[in-house]
């Protein structure tokens, strides 16, 4: 990034600094005049919104940490104290609590945008993979953060999720004890989760930096999925997209504030306002909403895989569920090599768009299944079956549908350039 060509600045102080450390040149190049496709829709706001949420989470988190006590006897009370006694503590906590949800909302929309418009395709594979890494880190961070208030859901969520690792053959039990630092989720576990919950956001920040760096090498994708071919296809990032991002962010924050101020506990679970108790499991353990589809996949596998008619089992139901859950994310990593269709945007791929929409629906249905008790039913159909079907479609979309569409889908005519596409759309309006 130590670029050789520098911009010129009228301000002498700025100029003096820039000669020695060209940060102003860098900002000017990457955020001032940076050529950006002229046809972004509002889907392109969510990267900036996610970035804002990350910073808001780090900012509130640091101040919450100043009043939090990571000890099993005091954690729950220290969080209640933040809510009741610490000046503006309730606000910090409600922003942080709901901020996690709104960070995930932004990121899920951001990921879906990438899927819909083919943003993971050449030359943006690494950009996409870094995004999946951020998503994984976010899940780990959110999970550990949820344990800190030491409520019933905190404790039992931590117990269920750490026990997933016991499914690994041979070393599983050792790994779980290592994760716990004891024989159950207890004080050592709470302490290390706090330490890691404080660390990981900064790791996320570093990966976001790489993500943005990769983005600025390839440039942004856009709704047509065609690369800009010249000046007529782009706009300088500032003021066009700084303004559009700011506007979108403000709309998003209005909704966010509605939750923070009027329904701070709407997205949470009342059981977490009961202190952790190792002797009583809540009747119905559910993770936070943003994990529900993955939780449903974990529970979808209830059968052993082995030789039928014998007791020989290769993959137990428990390990099968764990594989199904982690595999669903592993698939995202290899997506650029599963979907190699030359057309990027779903706009010009009607078949891909149809299957992608079913995929979205399956993901939402999985979320619903994950939110319900294991033995519930919907309209007479056991949710168990629906969960298994949803999981099967999730996998089939990546492993069957995409490779099949690579070979068979012809797609629609793609416009010659972004400029042509924009002008054609303008013409239609008039």
């Amino acid at each position: 990034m130590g670029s050789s060509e520098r911009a010129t600045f009228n301000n002498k102080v700025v100029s003096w600094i820039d000669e020695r450390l060209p940060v102003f040149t860098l900002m000017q190049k990457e955020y001032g005049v940076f050529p950006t496709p002229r046809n972004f829709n509002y889907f392109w706001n969510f990267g900036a919104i996610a970035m804002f949420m990350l910073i808001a989470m780090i900012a509130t988190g640091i101040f919450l940490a100043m009043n939090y006590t990571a000890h099993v006897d005091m954690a729950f009370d220290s969080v209640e104290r933040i809510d009741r006694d610490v000046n503006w503590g309730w606000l910090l906590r409600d922003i942080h609590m709901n901020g996690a949800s709104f960070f995930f909302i932004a990121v899920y929309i951001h990921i879906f945008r990438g899927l819909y418009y083919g943003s993971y395709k050449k030359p943006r594979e690494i950009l996409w993979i870094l995004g999946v890494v951020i998503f994984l880190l976010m899940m780990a961070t959110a999970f550990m953060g949820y344990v800190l208030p030491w409520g019933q859901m905190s404790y039992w969520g931590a117990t269920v999720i750490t026990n997933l690792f016991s499914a690994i053959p041979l070393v599983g039990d050792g790994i779980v004890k290592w994760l716990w630092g004891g024989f159950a989720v207890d004080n050592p576990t709470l302490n290390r989760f706090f330490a890691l919950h404080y660390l990981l956001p900064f790791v996320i920040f570093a990966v976001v930096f790489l993500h943005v760096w990769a983005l600025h090498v390839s440039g942004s994708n856009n709704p047509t999925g065609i690369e800009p071919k010249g000046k007529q296809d782009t706009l300088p990032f500032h003021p066009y997209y700084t303004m559009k991002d700011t506007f979108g962010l403000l709309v998003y924050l209005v909704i966010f504030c509605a939750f923070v101020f009027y329904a701070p506990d709407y997205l949470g679970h009342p059981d977490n306002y009961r202190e952790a108790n190792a002797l009583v499991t809540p009747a119905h353990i559910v993770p936070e909403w943003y994990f529900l589809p993955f939780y449903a996949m974990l529970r979808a596998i209830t059968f052993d895989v082995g030789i039928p008619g014998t007791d020989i089992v290769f993959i137990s139901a428990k390990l099968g569920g764990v594989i199904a859950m982690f595999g669903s994310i592993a698939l995202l990593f290899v997506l650029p090599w599963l979907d190699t269709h030359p057309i990027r945007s779903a706009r010009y791929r009607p078949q891909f768009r149809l299957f992608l929409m079913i995929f979205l629906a399956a993901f939402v249905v999985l979320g619903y299944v994950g939110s319900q008790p294991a033995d519930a039913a919907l309209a007479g159909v056991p949710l168990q079956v629906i969960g298994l079907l949803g999981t099967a479609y999730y996998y089939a979309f990546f492993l069957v549908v995409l490779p099949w569409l690579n070979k068979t889908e012809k797609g629609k005519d793609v416009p010659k350039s972004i400029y042509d596409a924009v002008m054609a759309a303008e013409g239609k309006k008039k």
Partner: protein
Amino acid sequence: MTAGSKSQAGIVTGQVGHSADDGATRRDFLFLTAGSFGAVGAGIAAWPLVHSMNPAKDTLALSTTEVDISKIEKGQSITVMWQGKPVFVRHRTEDEIDQARKVDLSALGDKQEDTARVKKDREAWLVVVGICTHLGCVPVGQKPSESRGDFGGWFCPCHGSHYDTSGRIRKGPAPKNLAVPPYEFLSDTLIKIG
């Protein structure tokens, strides 16, 4: 390597007794050994960090619990803590013992005789770790008001595993029977777990 040290193609003069090929091989060897030692050293240096996360000595020291069982009536069950985990101590009725012993082993997921799960001549006492072998919830069935599942033992409300009166898994996603912790009878009314 400077250009002057080369006289003919590929042969280094001035380094007595070694051709250029030899030199490259030796350098490769040195690089590889230095690299491997570095990697092993980094691994050894990382071990204290990794091992610090394993259970500490004071945690390991809390490894036994003594339980007075004189107050537990037939049909009753109590929960005690051992290593931060709940342990169920159940005083079984004759019916419950019969039920547990009648079962055809082939009907079990995790095949184990009831006799292998209790102490000889103390069949009335069943001691199991009260943690579902699926994902670690505490099964219900300790209180009279709670469901004991379809097999009269325990029922895990998280994902619906049913355990019988020997603590064996009979139905649901759990892969194994409730674990029997190491324990011994110190007297007729006192047991030591751990």
